[in-house]
Structure formats: structure tokens, C-alpha cells
């Protein structure tokens, strides 16, 4: 097949697709049609197999805290930064809201929520109920 090894030019910049979906309240990632890897952050080729056949998928937004830190600063409350492993098999940086920064524990089940910060959409997580 002619040009089958070449990545198809994306119709829209991957980062823009991510941001637009996030603005709609959806957390999206890419799924590789050739090797089934879950790809995050969004890009134009699969970093595992090199395929350009990446399909946008919406995450169910459920995941587990993989690593956590509380970032301290003078004259303000510490803020939490985590890495979350999503159930679909990709990892992302985020923060856990509704829990004091220093009390976020690795292994905690968390759920995605979209926020707006200075009119920019941000993906955050909260603890799963129960």
C-alpha cells in the first residue's frame, strides 16, 4: 500500500484536540490501532511501535495515585502534585482536590474532574467515594 509506513498528517494539532475535549469536560488519550498501547501525552505517532494510526478515546476517568508530593512554599498552603495511573493504561500528572496536600496517599483510587483555571481547562482528580 502506497505510503503505508508514513504517519498520516493529523487534521488538528494533538495538543489542541486534548485541550478542546478537556474544555468539554472529557479526558482523552490516544489508542494505537497497531499495538494497542494507550498513548499519553497526545502526539502524532505511537512511541511504542511508531505507528501513526492513533485513535482518540475518552477515558472513564478512573485511576490510582502512583506517586505524590506536597510542594511547600513560604506564606501559602502546600499544594499537591501527583502522578495518576488511569485504568486504560496511561499515566498523567495532576493534583488531588479535596484532600490536604500532605495526606494524599499512593494507591488511593481517584476520579477525574475538569476545572477551569484562568479560562484554561485543567484535568484534576478527587478521591473516589467509599
Amino acid at each position: 500500500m502506497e505510503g503505508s509506513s508514513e504517519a498520516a498528517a493529523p487534521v488538528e494539532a494533538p495538543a489542541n484536540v486534548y485541550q478542546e475535549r478537556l474544555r468539554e469536560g472529557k479526558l482523552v488519550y490516544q489508542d494505537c490501532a497497531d499495538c494497542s498501547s494507550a498513548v499519553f501525552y497526545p502526539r502524532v505517532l505511537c512511541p511504542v511501535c511508531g505507528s501513526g494510526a492513533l485513535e482518540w478515546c475518552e477515558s472513564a476517568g478512573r485511576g490510582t495515585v502512583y506517586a505524590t508530593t506536597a510542594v511547600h512554599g513560604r506564606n501559602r498552603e502546600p499544594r499537591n502534585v501527583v502522578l495518576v495511573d488511569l485504568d486504560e493504561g496511561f499515566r498523567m500528572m495532576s493534583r488531588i482536590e479535596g484532600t490536604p496536600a500532605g495526606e494524599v496517599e499512593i494507591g488511593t483510587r481517584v476520579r477525574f474532574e475538569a476545572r477551569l483555571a484562568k479560562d484554561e481547562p485543567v484535568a484534576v482528580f478527587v478521591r473516589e467515594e467509599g
Partner: protein
Amino acid sequence: MSLRGKTAIVGAAESDLGEVGSGFTPLDLIGQATTRALADAGLEKKDVDGLFSASVYYQMPTLSVGEYLGIRPRYSDATMMGGSSFVSHLLHATAGIEAGLCEVALITYASTQLPDGGFRGVSDPPNPYETPYGPRYPVSMYALAASRHMYEYGTTREQLAEVAVAAREWAKLNPKAFKREDLTVEDVLASRMISSPLSLLDCCLVTDGGGALIVTSAERAKELRKPPVYLLGAGEAHWHRNISRMPDLTVTAAVDSGRRAYEMAGVGPKDVDVAMLYDAFTINPILFLEDLSFCEKGEGGTFVEGGRIAPGGELPVNTSGGGLSYNHPGMYGLLLLIEAVRQLRGECGERQIEGADVALAHGNGGVLSSQVTAILGSANAL
């Protein structure tokens, strides 16, 4: 064709260190270090035909350095992968010398970050997948790795603190070290939290300083002033740039760089007399002790207990006092090579490891991103 023993470090020197005062530029310090390293080697500036540098100041570092020093290299390499870059330059210089592209290589670096406003790192564009969450670069990234290591292997803050205390014990034996006062595990635990679990004294110093190394062929090295310190093996590896893309936060690419270096050198961890493990944060040496096979994965915290890497311990690590207590001018990889050279020449005075013939120098860059391992040896180790 192996590069083992093909080149040697023949000159090594620091610039002024610590706080150099306002007005000095990184290029001034590079000039100091280069003059001293050439004198150490018994070579002249006109002998240098290969130039290697990396910088967070100059976008085209070998051009800026070449112009300032008045060197017109025929081989030039500004590989930039953070603090490990200079260990990488040693490997690249060796390849260049062996290929006949240059004969005498200068590897140099400096920073004047204190008068320039404090810690000065790289300035990549904002990352839309990390920047919005406000991690403090780079400490939060190392803190995330430490949190995972503690979770998986039960590593404790006390064990992290042992790394800082061992570094301080070595620094007390080094007149050039920036921090030489007493330090206890309790002091480290009580210091201001920066990004949990890492507190202020888990973090490297922020100082001015720099250094220079002169590298040439093993053949030419024999005619020079100082005993040659041979490159026995080296390996480099990198798997990620951003911490959110590091596959496993408890395993660094040092497993690859170390294996490559050991294979080229024909030695293993048991043959290493002294190890320089890039200690930007206390978690680093713990990870590298594991990934470079000095202990099993997960046992790094236990390994550093009881002064095992401190003076008098089983494995001398970071005998200068390291980035934690000796000096850390933004990027530290060149300074750990200088200490390895001095140990193999027997120039370390009170902190000298008797009969040191094999030294491992391991550089780290970015956020546990680039890993470069070099194994150096005296003539006895060839």
C-alpha cells in the same frame, strides 16, 4: 573495536568555587578552570583541538567558550542532557580522539548562578501536561520518585538523610567543600520541607563554580606531567525527559548506562574502589546504588545505613562531599569526574582511598532522565 583504555584524562581542575562574587561570568570561571587544567596536564592552550561544553547560559556553548578562550577547535560537541552531559562528553571525546577527529580535548563548564539570582536551570517551554500543576522543578520530580521508592520498598526519610550525612562527613575532609559543619540525621529531618518527602537538606547546594578536564590519547598521555587516568568504559542512556513519562519511578536508565560501561571496562561493581554518584537529591545515590548493581533493587535505603558510604564505610561514595555538601553549580557532572581523577592519582589528602585503582563516575541529568556512567582506572587497572 573497544574504546577501553584508548584515552586518558591528563588534566583536571576546578574554577573558583562557592560564591565567586558579582560581575564574574561563567566564561570567566571556565577561563580559570581551563588555565589550571592545562597547567595540571603540562599542555598549552594551542594544543587543544577538541572542545566540549554544555550550559544553561549559552545556547551555543562551544562557540561562546571557544571565542572567550581563543580556541579554534576542529571537533566540537555541545551535547546537552543536563548534569550528566560532561560524562557523556568524555565518551564522545574518546570516540573523537580514537577516530582521529581531534587529539587534545577540553571539556569545560561553569555557572555563576548565585550573583545571577539563585538556582538557574534549563528553560524549556511550558509543558501543558505538567506546568499547570505547579511542580517545583526539579525537586518535585525527584520527590515523586522518592515517594514511590518509599511506598514500594519501605525506604525511610532517615535513610535518605543518611546520604546527606555521609556526604557531609566526606566534605569535612575536603578543604574545598562549601558545607563542612556537623550534620545529623535529625538535622536533615528537621530542615524545612521543600517538596515532600524531600526537605532542604535532602537537596543539593546552590553554588557558583565550574571545572575543566583535558583528555588525550593513551599514547600521548604517557608523556605528560601527571599519571594518566584511563577511561576503561562508558555508557549512556535516556528514556524520558519529563517525570510523567518515566516508565517506573524506582528504576532509572542507569541500568542500561551502567551495564554498557561495565561491559566495555570488563569490570563489575565489586571491582569499584570508589564511586561518584550524582547526588542532586538524597534519593539519587540510593537509586544509582541499585541500578548500578551495588545492591538489589529496593535495598538502596538499607545499603546506605550505618555509614556504609561514609568515610570508613564499605563503599566510599562521593568523597568530595558531593553535590550535597561540596559544590553544585547547577550541573555537577564535571566535578564528580574531577574527584574521580584525583582519587586515582592519590591526590585526595585526608579523604584519599588507599590503593584506589578503579573509580566509577555516574552522571544524572534532567529529572532522573539522562544517565551516563564512566569507569576510570589507573595504570594498574589497564
